[in-house]
């Protein structure tokens, strides 16, 4: 059974909680005691409906204020797949959470209220999904029951979204007309919309092809930890432990280690359960080489004919996440990229992006909380990286404030500074 991570974003009004509640309930992932607790709380508040948002709004402040303030993770499974939902609130002030939820997602679910059509928020969600390179996007046109299951309404929203999406980088786009409240096209195909020829949402989630989304071409193995037991039984054992970040690595493959540039050959790929014939993402393995070369944490193993970019000057799209500080040229920050930690100097801010209009403000001289822009960075040591669109693991980094230790920025590498 395969694992699919999906990110949803939206507010209470567009029926997102109802939809998630329905997916969880229909797949039996909501338990009776959870439902009873939610019913009890809804009654105490005097609501005349069961607020399924309470299933995910777990923190005291959220329940008291009736808001969602953070990414909540929910789990459900069908006989075909296991799903992890990263559920984030959709308001503009929560861009940070949306980016967080989107960073690991295979699929983004964007909800639109059929009565209102595309709103600013739907565009923002779609933009963040494309920025974070979520390979699959599903636009659910919800509340179709309230527009009489009218095909024209669905087609109009679809056309409008397609036009907008043409400016984004979305590989796979699917449209599904649903009613989360009544269950139309959620688990089963709806009899109310015979004109719709696609599959139900759940069926799509079960079938969408995600295996080829990973990079299986460029071998990237960031060394995480060196295993040297020095025991009698494993006297000369020297394994480089790490998680495959790209490509397929096999015993006998020629490799080069960066930054040293030393070359060798893969002798064995080890796990406790025995050696494996090949390793690919996201397997966590231990690589043994034929030669005794000096490799340590933060180094990168790759193929000699297919190396990542190496350099200290990179351009990246950065989402700023700090409430207490700003990003401006001259700032020095800690940067973590794969297993490598360096310091970075912000050399330049090229523009700030308006995430609603996609307009680039080139006069901007700082980024504040939830703002996104293009920066040039200079690092204290070289990074071994790929463009984010080519590899989400070797193309991403986080920025950390060295004074507070807070994570203050998320970066997606565009390439070397030009």
């Amino acid at each position, binding site marked *: 059974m395969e*694992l699919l991570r999906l990110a949803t974003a939206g507010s209470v009004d567009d029926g997102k909680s109802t939809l998630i509640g329905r997916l969880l309930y229909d797949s039996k992932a909501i338990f009776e005691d959870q439902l009873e607790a939610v019913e009890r709380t809804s009654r105490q508040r005097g609501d005349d409906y069961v607020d399924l948002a309470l299933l995910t709004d*777990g923190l005291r402040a959220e329940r008291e204020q009736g808001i969602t*303030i*953070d990414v909540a*993770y*929910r789990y459900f*499974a069908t006989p075909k797949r296991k799903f992890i939902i990263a559920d984030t609130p959709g308001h503009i002030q929560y861009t940070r959470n949306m980016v967080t939820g989107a960073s690991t997602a295979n699929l983004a679910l964007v909800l639109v209220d059929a009565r209102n059509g595309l709103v600013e928020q739907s565009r923002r969600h779609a933009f963040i999904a494309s920025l974070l390179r979520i390979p699959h996007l599903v636009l659910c046109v919800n509340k179709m029951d309230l527009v009489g299951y009218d095909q024209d309404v669905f087609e109009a929203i679809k056309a409008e979204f397609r036009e907008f999406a043409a400016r984004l980088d979305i590989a796979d786009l699917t449209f599904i007309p649903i009613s989360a409240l009544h269950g139309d096209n959620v688990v089963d195909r709806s009899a109310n919309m015979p004109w719709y020829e696609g599959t139900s949402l759940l069926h799509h989630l079960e079938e969408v092809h995600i295996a080829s989304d990973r990079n299986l071409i460029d071998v990237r193995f960031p060394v995480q930890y060196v295993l040297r037991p020095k025991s009698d039984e494993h006297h000369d054992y020297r394994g480089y432990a790490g998680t495959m970040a790209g490509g397929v690595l096999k015993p006998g493959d020629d490799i080069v280690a960066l930054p040293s540039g030393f070359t060798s050959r893969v002798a064995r790929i080890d796990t406790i359960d025995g050696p494996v014939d090949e390793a690919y993402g996201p397997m966590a393995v231990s690589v043994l080489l034929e030669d005794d070369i000096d490799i340590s944490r933060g180094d990168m193993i790759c193929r000699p004919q297919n190396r990542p970019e190496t350099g200290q000057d990179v351009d990246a799209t950065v989402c700023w996440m700090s409430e207490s500080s700003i990003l401006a040229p001259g700032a020095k920050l800690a940067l973590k990229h794969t297993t490598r930690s360096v310091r970075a100097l912000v050399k330049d801010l090229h523009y700030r992006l308006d995430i609603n209009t996609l307009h680039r403000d080139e006069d901007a001289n700082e980024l504040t909380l939830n703002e996104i822009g293009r920066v040039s960075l200079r690092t204290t040591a070289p990074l071994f990286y790929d463009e984010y669109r080519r590899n989400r693991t070797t193309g991403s980094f986080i920025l950390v404030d060295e004074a507070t230790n807070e994570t203050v920025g998320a970066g997606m590498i565009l390439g070397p500074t030009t």
Partner: protein
Amino acid sequence: MHYELSHLRALEAEAIHIMREVAAEFERPVLLFSGGKDSIVMLRLAEKAFWPCPLPFPVMHVDTGHNFDEVLAFRDQRVDELGARLVVASVQESIDRGRVREETGPRASRNRLQTTTLLDAIEEHEFDAAFGGARRDEEKARAKERVFSFRDEFGQWDPKNQRPELWSLYNGRHRKGEHIRVFPLSNWTELDIWQYIAEEGVEIPSIYYAHRREVFRRDGMLLAVGPYVTLADDEEPFEAVVRYRTVGDASCTGAVESSADTIDKVIAEVAATRITERGATRADDRVSEAAMEDRKREGYF
């Protein structure tokens, strides 16, 4: 299909990655081990992450003194097999030293006292990272907790001020006296744990399987009759065939009636169950809607 990992292998790889990050970036990590199935799975994952090296960190048991005998025996056997160093932090000692006061009355529990014992031990041993077996599917507050969860110098968790956590890039930076709780099983569900135990052939204490036991009913739960609980006048002991879904302090962990005496039967039961494991069996979580959040803020597991 080719180049596809099953969900269990993907979850396993994620947990191993997290453990190796901690071993590489922290000076004094520790793995919290309760003898429960989640910490047993963690121990197995740690073994995998560092094989053929021994575990690069000790294992710590916060011992309430209210144990199931089977679990203690299991703990010692497993630690022995791995050649790991075991640290026992004792709630009884915290009581004897006057750090905490024992609760009294028929419903007295040492559950809440564990927090002080745990934090004292973390301070005493200068641990800077502590692996916990918590899962996000267990409870609402946990559903929002990070994999690397920052604790201040008082051991407190501040749910409204958590570090954003993106991709698989974890931020473990902290000052002296602060620490990070690390949850490699964050994305696992109860069913995943059981399926993994079955697939890996991991051994678990016998009380997880159906057995006969003398129990009594309290708050709709079945609690074991034993030296650590006092029965109220209207509580009648009786014998039943039960198993445990979680293993915690014997005074507040409930059993469920079940005839599942093999792993396959347990998995079938878990897959069909309609009540969460904490809701069914943990008196400690029933105190209020935000019981877990409140305890976690104080520094609980």
